[in-house]
């Protein structure tokens, strides 16, 4: 009997804790993660920074996407630096690691391909996954089109990246065949 009463008290106490916790969650304000509807890149970046500081970190990729759209609406070579500053800020505030920030910026604004990286030799690392690497590079070229070409008006850089992709495809095809022939 005493045991049953103790169980009942324990259950009541646990229920109370759950109710309090639930009411606490309900009253916490959820941040508004929508970016301001502006067509000016600097204002849009400030808006994104504000939202990120309020806790909308999960929206980072979406903000980046929107910022690229905004930049494409007013393309300018200086936009490269604006994005760089934004990503450096994100790294400094701990939203991104330094490496993530570098990869993001280079993916959109550098001729070189983030998709073609690694610490081992090409026969061992690149050749076994050559087709996947090429697919990734093609997708990255589409991002470079948005960043370099549409947002920053860097036509020369974009077309060099385009040519680099073609050259890489040719050279990797030959190199990987040579690697395979050496392994036979």
């Amino acid at each position, binding site marked *: 009997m005493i045991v049953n009463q103790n169980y009942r008290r324990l259950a009541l106490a646990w229920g109370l804790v759950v109710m309090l916790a639930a009411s606490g969650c309900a009253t916490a304000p959820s941040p508004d993660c929508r970016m301001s509807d502006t067509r000016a890149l600097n204002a849009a970046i400030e808006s994104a920074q504000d939202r990120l500081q309020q806790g909308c970190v999960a929206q980072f990729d979406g903000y980046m996407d929107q910022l690229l759209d905004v930049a494409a609406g007013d*393309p300018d070579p200086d936009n490269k630096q604006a994005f760089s500053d934004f990503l450096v800020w994100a790294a400094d505030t701990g939203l991104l690691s330094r490496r993530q920030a570098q990869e993001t910026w280079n993916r959109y604004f550098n*001729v*070189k*391909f983030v998709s*073609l*990286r*690694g*610490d*081992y*030799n*090409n*026969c061992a*690392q*690149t*050749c076994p996954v050559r087709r996947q*690497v090429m697919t990734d590079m093609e997708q990255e070229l589409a991002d470079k*089109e948005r960043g370099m*070409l*549409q947002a920053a008006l860097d*036509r020369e850089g974009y*077309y*060099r990246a*385009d*040519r*680099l992709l*073609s*050259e*890489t495809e*040719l*050279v*990797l*095809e*030959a*190199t*990987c*065949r*040579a*690697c395979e*022939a*050496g392994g036979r």
Partner: protein
Amino acid sequence: MKGTDGNHGASSVRGAAAALLIAVPLLLGAARGPTLQLFPTTVLEDIKETGQAAEQMETGLQDVIARLDRQQQLYVQSKCDGAEGDPGCGRISRQLGTSYMEMLDVMATRLPDMERAVNSTRDSLEKRLRAELGLKMTPWTLQETLLGNEPTGAETSQPRLRGRSGLRLSERFRQYYSLVAQSGRTAEHSLAVVAADIYLDMEEASTLIAQTREEIGRATLLEELNQSFGVITPEMQQVVDGVKTILFGEAGQVIELAGPPTGAADDSYQSPLEW
């Protein structure tokens, strides 16, 4: 099948031609001491030899193809088509068949040399590519090598790699030489691309030469067995046309020079605000 004989032969010639045509740029590049060891002297020698083999084949076929053309013209002018019973037409037909067999014979004679040269070039390049780009480089350093030095304006007007030209091989060779001589220097990054290009071409050529040799043997045997020298078939004509197109560029094709990168002009981004 005879039609494919010609295409195979033509393709193999084309493969060797790539080496011939690019030999001079490579020599110039090597002379300036690239750090990439893709073209040591042995590879250059192999490439030169391949070019010479292609040139010899071109020279050897020139006369017989010209004769075939004259005989074909005479056949048409004499209205021999459908007049097989006519003794004069029969004689022209037999001459055509003999010339055709001679063309196959020249190809069969020259192809072994070319095959040796092509295989040797392929093997040397294969080793260099594996060592220099495959084992010594990471993906990132490969990328940096390809970016290397930006090409000069003159280099952008070099003929497109792995392209097809309707120009006589020797003439195209001269044009390459001229373009490269004007370019001033050959960027190192292009050596990697050129090496890859020649290697892939040599590999393809090697396969095609082997197939062509086999087909020539078969075609020759069939002609002899059928004793059909008297008639030049459309297939025979196709073979002759194919060889002419590749060797002498007689198909009315224009010289192909390199264009801008894919989508460079037409596909470029245009802002709606652009005037």
